[in-house]
């Protein structure tokens, strides 16, 4: 995984050349397998940039309404989210310098140990980068064809069941929901200034997930962050994936 070295050197070069003011990447945390998204402004801190299979956070949402020229490293899923944000005038393309980086998928971490690949990486079908200025090792994105089949497997499995079974499946999950809004706060296409579910309480929180999924209809880039961050492990990405599935048909 020598992208990390290239990323550090490019960051220094671009900063030295005055092309960029700051860098958005991942930084080693207090605990080894927990790198966090971080903004780097000082060149000597660029050494702390890390890039490994534990960098699970999607960086695109952090650049909304960014004012200074920022170098940002994007993998295929981040790149699609970033492109959607540019299309929706949430980030000015000229304020960003984008380097596309290769990605072999990230792993879930629990109690310090690496578990299996993230669900979104197991079913990832993206190999292209809609917007970028430079590339690092983008050729080695291993997207086997199995991902394409796996992507909607769960959706079609649920569809084939009785709707009472589906209801039981979702009630079991949603009754665990603590409305911490992590799925909303991490979602790149969920960028309202004031979320309608907070202020107006139109539905007293009921159907929060249905409304959120419908708000992303046609915009969701299927990056899988919503399910990854859910502390209760609710597979909310399935709702968006179902909408993508029906609109593809």
């Amino acid at each position: 995984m020598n992208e990390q070295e290239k990323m550090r050197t490019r960051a220094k070069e671009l900063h030295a050349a005055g092309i960029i003011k700051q860098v958005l990447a991942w930084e080693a945390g207090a605990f080894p397998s927990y790198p966090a998204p971080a903004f780097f402004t000082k060149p000597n801190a660029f050494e702390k940039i890390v890039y490994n299979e534990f960098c699970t956070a999607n960086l695109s949402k952090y650049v909304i309404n960014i004012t200074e020229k920022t170098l940002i490293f994007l993998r295929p899923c981040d790149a699609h989210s970033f492109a959607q944000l540019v299309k929706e005038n949430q980030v000015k393309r000229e304020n960003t310098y984008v380097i596309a980086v290769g990605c072999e998928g990230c792993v879930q971490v629990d109690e310090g140990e690496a578990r299996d690949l993230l669900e979104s990486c197991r079913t990832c079908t993206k190999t292209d980068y809609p917007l970028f200025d430079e590339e690092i090792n983008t050729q080695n994105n291993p997207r086997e064809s199995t991902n394409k089949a796996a992507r909607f497997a769960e959706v079609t499995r649920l569809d084939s069941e009785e709707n009472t079974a589906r209801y039981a499946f979702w009630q079991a999950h949603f009754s665990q929901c603590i409305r911490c809004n992590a799925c909303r706060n991490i979602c790149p296409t969920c960028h309202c200034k004031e979320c309608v579910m907070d202020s107006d309480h139109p539905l007293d929180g009921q159907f929060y997930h249905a409304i959120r999924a419908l708000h992303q209809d046609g915009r969701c880039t299927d990056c899988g962050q919503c399910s990854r961050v859910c502390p209760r492990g609710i597979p909310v990405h399935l709702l968006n994936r179902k909408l993508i599935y029906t609109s593809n048909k």
Partner: protein
Amino acid sequence: MRIGVFVCHCGSNIKATIDAEYIAAQVQQDAKVVHAAEYPYLCAEGGQQKIINAVREYQLTGVVICACSPRMHENTFRKTAAKAGLNPYQIEIANIREQCSWVHKNKDAATGKALKLAKAAIARVKLALPLFAGESAVTKRALVIGGGIAGIQTALDIAEAGFAVDLVESTPSIGGKMAQLDKTFPTLDCAACILTPKMVDAAAHEKITLHTYSEVEEVEGFVGNFTATIRKKARSVDMKKCTGCGACWEKCPSKRIPSEFDCGLANRTAIYTPFAQAVPNVPVIDRATCIKFKNGRCGLCADVCQPAAIDFTQEDAVFTQEYGVIIAATGYQVFSLDAYGEYAYHDSKNVITSLELERLMNAAGPTGGKLQRPSDGKAPKKITFIQCVGSRDITRGKPYCSKICCMYTAKHAIAIKEKYPEAEIEIFYIDVRTPGKGFDEFYRRAVEVYGVRYIKGQVGKIAEMNGILHMQAVDLLENKRFDTTADMVVLAAAIEPSPGAKPLAQMLATPMDTLRFFSEAHPKLRPVESATAGIFLSGVCHGPKDIPETVAQASAAACKAIGVLAKDKLITNPCVAKVNDKKCTGCGRCIDVCPYKAISLESNAAEANPALCQGCGGCASLCPSNAMDLNGFTHKQVLAEVDALCR
């Protein structure tokens, strides 16, 4: 907040199945309802005065009217509120007649529902913000689509009022169906004599611009600010130079083209004017049949044309023009008789439609006015007319009565008997409908003076055998079946909207009924206005009518149009979209959903132009952060209404 609730009895229409006192009593449980009353006729003068007095006496800030549909009297009650000094948009109507008392027989159920509807209206009025109508400019120009008598009359009336009019006609000349007629009922005066002067007036009127051989391709905008794109198809003749001398169509070698104007009973040349008195009297080259256009040879017409008006290189001219109002006058066409094989219309030349008979009887027609059988040219001694072919027939035809056939068949009978007294005429009918002025007297003369035989019955089958048409028929009055023969059979075929009506309706976004007639705003109260503001209906495009009615409706449509053009500015609908720019993230999704392109992005926040916005609400329900809202139907109001109805 001080709300007044008024429950109408509507005579017995509401009172019969809804307990009005109970509702007036129940709504007072809401602390904000300071006054509730019921009244036999709220829409009447007395009722409105009662409301005005109550608003003043109780200083009401919101009024709820439980009565008929808002589509009926919303404006009436808004004016009443304005008179009482209340903002006209702080009044809500609960529809407890059309959608409650008239559709639910059980009194308890109806009363219970009416109370719920009243509470929903109260919930809405509590959140109703005072709204102020905006203004938008009016383009002082009218567009009339369709050059028949309806379009001509409307154009003339509007022009007389001093406004510019563009009259667009798809065929090469104005005149429409009336130009094809011979005589007109009930006075038997010749159609051309009463039509051509109006055509000439229309052409000569300095306020009217004729666009014949042209079609409307696209319409945008709204009342006072329509923009139409019109395509003037290339005539291949320069209208300024052409004197209408006719040298070209005499010399044109391609002569065997069936003339649409003569319903195919005669032929025309490739370069032609539809009929002699055509206005403008400038020919058109039919490029599909002109040899010059087909294989580049010929061009004789150009050689003989002294003023050198022929121009084969002429292109279609497409132009856009602003209009304040648009009047649809697309007229009708004869219903196709393919489904009526039993009348052998397609098999025997001597079975014709009434319009074809008009051409045969017309002095300018294919036979110079002599009534001849199309098969052998002999004068028919015995003629049979069959009424309601395709009309009043829900299985294969049109469910409606075409209204004009009884009268024009009587006219044909009288006209034939006048010229050929010895001719024998039978008319098979279901009912003879003569509702107009002097109509029944006219029909009585056909029977008593001219001896026309009216048989109440149907013809089952027609077959032509060596020149004679044999018919199996039934006489319902005598209750007997009998066979009869005739030299010629005339079918009074039904009439239907012209093919151009449906695409035009979609362009104008005006509703159409299932039979492709334009839907009027209200069958009794607003017959000449379409449901879309600024678009009016003239002639048969709205429904079957005879010439007197068409002209009357044409003038009425003109009068309504003038009502708009006469204003310098129009009051715009205040129920338009508005943006809360504190919440708007500038994502621009609402821009694509707006059919009127009323939304634009200003410094990273959306903005809706009240002059363009028509208040459909598509943007408000698409906006994820509820930044976009719709006056009059705000999120809060509809949610409150849902709560009131569901609790």
